[in-house]
């Protein structure tokens, strides 16, 4: 088992009269994960989506870090799972998200334009019955 230290810092001198300075850390015990940089081909849901997490790839719990590497804020990437009807997140160029995902659902990404670059990582406990690269 390995430990990933996930830290988030939120700071602002002006958003409140009292300066905001929040720092949180979570030590995630996981046995698998890596960073991946890929192009997103699809520009509409369920057509050429980039699969970032296959259903039951991990057991119990899993976390996804994803960053939209576009420099244009309005070139979004959209994250959704394949069983529900809405969007999990809409991420602008240069923005990132760090979210838990439901291990038994498939998560996919499409973008505003073809071949947008994203960087993402899935961290969790690998389920050997459903290795990454499955469908």
């Amino acid at each position, binding site marked *: 088992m390995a430990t990933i230290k996930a830290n988030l810092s939120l700071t602002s001198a*002006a958003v409140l009269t009292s300066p905001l300075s929040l720092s949180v850390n979570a030590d995630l015990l996981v046995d698998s994960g890596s960073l991946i940089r890929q192009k997103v081909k699809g520009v509409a849901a369920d057509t050429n989506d980039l699969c970032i997490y296959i259903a039951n790839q991990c057991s119990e719990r899993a976390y996804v870090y994803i960053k939209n590497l576009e420099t244009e804020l309005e070139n979004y990437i959209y994250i959704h799972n394949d069983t529900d009807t809405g969007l999990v997140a*809409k991420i602008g160029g240069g923005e990132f998200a760090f979210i*838990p995902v*439901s291990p038994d659902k498939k998560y996919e990404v499409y973008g505003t334009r073809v071949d947008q670059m994203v960087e993402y990582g899935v961290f969790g406990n690998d389920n050997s019955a459903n290795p990454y690269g499955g469908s």
Partner: protein
Amino acid sequence: MATTTATITLSSADLTGDALSLSSTATLTKAGTLTGLSQTTGVGRKTTTATSQYILFDGDAYANGSHKVYLKNTSTVATEFLTIEINSEQMGKLYAGDWAFFPWEANADTNDIKITPSVSTSLTLEYALFIDE
């Protein structure tokens, strides 16, 4: 205009033979512009005492935009989690001590962020919303 920055660092010395050391910083801006977010709920906490689903943020109460959301499950009991649903889509389960940070569009009254605690005993969620309006 306020400038708020979010920095994430992910590091691990033992996940693979190549040590993981990632750091990424983003300035929190309104949708499609470089204008900083100037409104916030501040950092607050909500304590639940039932396994009912709660509306944490009402999609109808905020404009269509690029709001930013921070959530943390403050529980220290490893098995306790909060299931997060956003835009009628299950995001995932936030276990004890874990946090999440993500943008939220809130483009319709159905686009609530909802939480469902796993336990009916006291469970506290820490949150902050940075509002695009």
